[in-house]
């Protein structure tokens, strides 16, 4: 019998590849679960209320008292500010692309293409770019500097995610709005935004989650400090860098705090990510 047509050989081949596939899927899921498990197992014993509600006290990096409130607040302010700035740019741009431009407009194509490219640019490059802007305007490492870099980092993520949902708004809805005498601007902000609001919120959450976890864009731009953030122009501590610096010290107590900080940051990001998902699922039910 021709070997090529032997059903047993063919089945064997299928089974070999199928087990390879199961193995691959399992390996990836296992690796990701292992990361989560490592962070929880290492971080949980060191996590305490004091860590979350205090700034570092003197001798903190030698194992003395204090917490990472400076980094938590710094990260929230910095990423919150960046997300706000990014919304201010993304929303009008996305509405313009979808409401004002005709389908198949070259500008819309070029804009989406360039956002896709921006999305792929590594965050260290945004850090370096943010740094050159800061030098240009004479801004030192500060909350503001970090905010600028993170705004550039999350802008493409936010715009592309918003674009995906605004695009889904039915044309009939806009036509109905025009028929009632509304202008394009009114249609864009009162009809399209309202219809796409859940998706827009998801886009904001996703960008926030990406921004708050990024360290490389902040190394040059935000600096680091042990005090709570009070001024836009003063250096600000952030969670990813707090983890990085604490983890790099030889003191076991301080490393323990790095684990606890990592757990805190991971939890914040997971909560945001899950919330974004639930938001999409819950609200898409009631949209027209």
């Amino acid at each position, binding site marked *: 019998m021709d070997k090529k047509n032997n059903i047993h050989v063919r089945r064997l081949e299928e089974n070999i590849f199928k087990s390879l596939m199961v193995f691959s899927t399992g390996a990836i899921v296992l690796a990701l679960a292992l990361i989560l498990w490592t962070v929880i197992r290492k971080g949980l014993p060191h996590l305490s209320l004091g860590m979350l509600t205090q700034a570092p006290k003197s001798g903190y990096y030698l194992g003395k008292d204090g917490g990472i409130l400076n980094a938590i607040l710094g990260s929230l302010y910095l990423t919150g500010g960046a997300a706000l700035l990014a919304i201010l740019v993304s929303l009008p741009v996305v509405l313009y692309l979808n409401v004002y431009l005709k389908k198949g407009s070259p500008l819309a194509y070029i804009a989406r293409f360039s956002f896709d490219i921006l999305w792929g640019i590594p965050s260290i490059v945004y850090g370096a770019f943010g740094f*050159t802007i800061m030098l240009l305007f004479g801004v030192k490492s500060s909350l503001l500097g970090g905010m600028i870099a993170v705004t550039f980092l999350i802008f493409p993520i936010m715009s592309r995610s918003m674009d995906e949902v605004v695009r889904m708004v039915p044309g009939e809805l806009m036509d109905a709005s025009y028929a009632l005498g509304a202008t394009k601007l009114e249609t864009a902000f009162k009809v399209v935004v309202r219809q796409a609001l859940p998706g827009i919120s998801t886009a904001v959450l996703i960008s926030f989650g990406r921004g708050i976890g990024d360290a490389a864009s902040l190394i040059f731009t935000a600096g680091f400090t042990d005090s709570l953030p009070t001024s836009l122009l003063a250096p600000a501590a952030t969670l990813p860098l707090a983890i990085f610096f604490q983890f790099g010290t030889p003191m076991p107590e301080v490393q323990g705090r790095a684990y606890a900080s990592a757990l805190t940051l991971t939890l914040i990001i997971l909560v945001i990510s899950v919330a974004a998902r639930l938001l999409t699922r819950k609200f898409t039910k009631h949209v027209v």
Partner: protein
Amino acid sequence: MMRGLAVASTLIVVLIALALFMRSKPILALKPLTTLLFSTAWHPSRGEFGFLAFIAGTLWVTLVASFIAIPVCILASIYLSEYADKRLREWIGPFIDILAGIPSVVYGMWGVLVIVPLVKNIIAPLFGGYSAGYSVLAGGLVLAVMISPVIIHISVEVLRTVPSDLKQASLALGATKWETIKFVVMKRAMPGMIAASVLGLSRAFGETIAVMMVVGNVARIPRTVFDPAYPLPALIANNYGEMLSIPLYDSGLLFAALLLLLVVIYFNVVSKMILSGSKWSLYYNG
């Protein structure tokens, strides 16, 4: 005004490239490009800027990561889209996507705690080599895990666009499921898979913190995967403190950033061109 904003935001890429280029001009004016790219002499305080060791480090780590991640991810995405039943798929998909959001510094920490000892105590002795653990292989392994969600997410999307008529026609002709995948599905999905891999690769290329924590950061061209390396992003991130105190150093580092930018733009344009025409549009919605 909205139009102005839209046009301006389109030009950000150009703006970034231009800004980095302007800042790297001083070093480009003094050193020939070939010296910068192909010399290993790295003594910023003596005015010697040869990036070859760093470029080699980046390439090694990226290639090792791709070598591990691409086959595994393609097999996994075929499994998820063609074999796995719906319930399993609906759990694993979001699980992978959500965990993709874990920050890179946490990946790096995990790398130091788990992967570095694994390379030092188990993998290197297994192949009869010695490794301090902080090595190209450790960097590659951590990166492979980091880029997997991206590659899987896009590959699954691409596989979903293969029309089921095609599969049914092949099955009706007596092909097994695997033969259908091998000859019909893969043929159709191949460009998308390649694009997904290129995007994963470009993600690996620019990843900074996680890699920096596990590759050892020794500015020498690695000879085996057990040697340490010093990739470009790590070089930039590690030297921000002293770069303004040594002449030309900041220019050199921003030149490194420019190199990263150009390579990543190239990767992205290539994959975008491969994918253009296919239905999905969002790279990755982590």
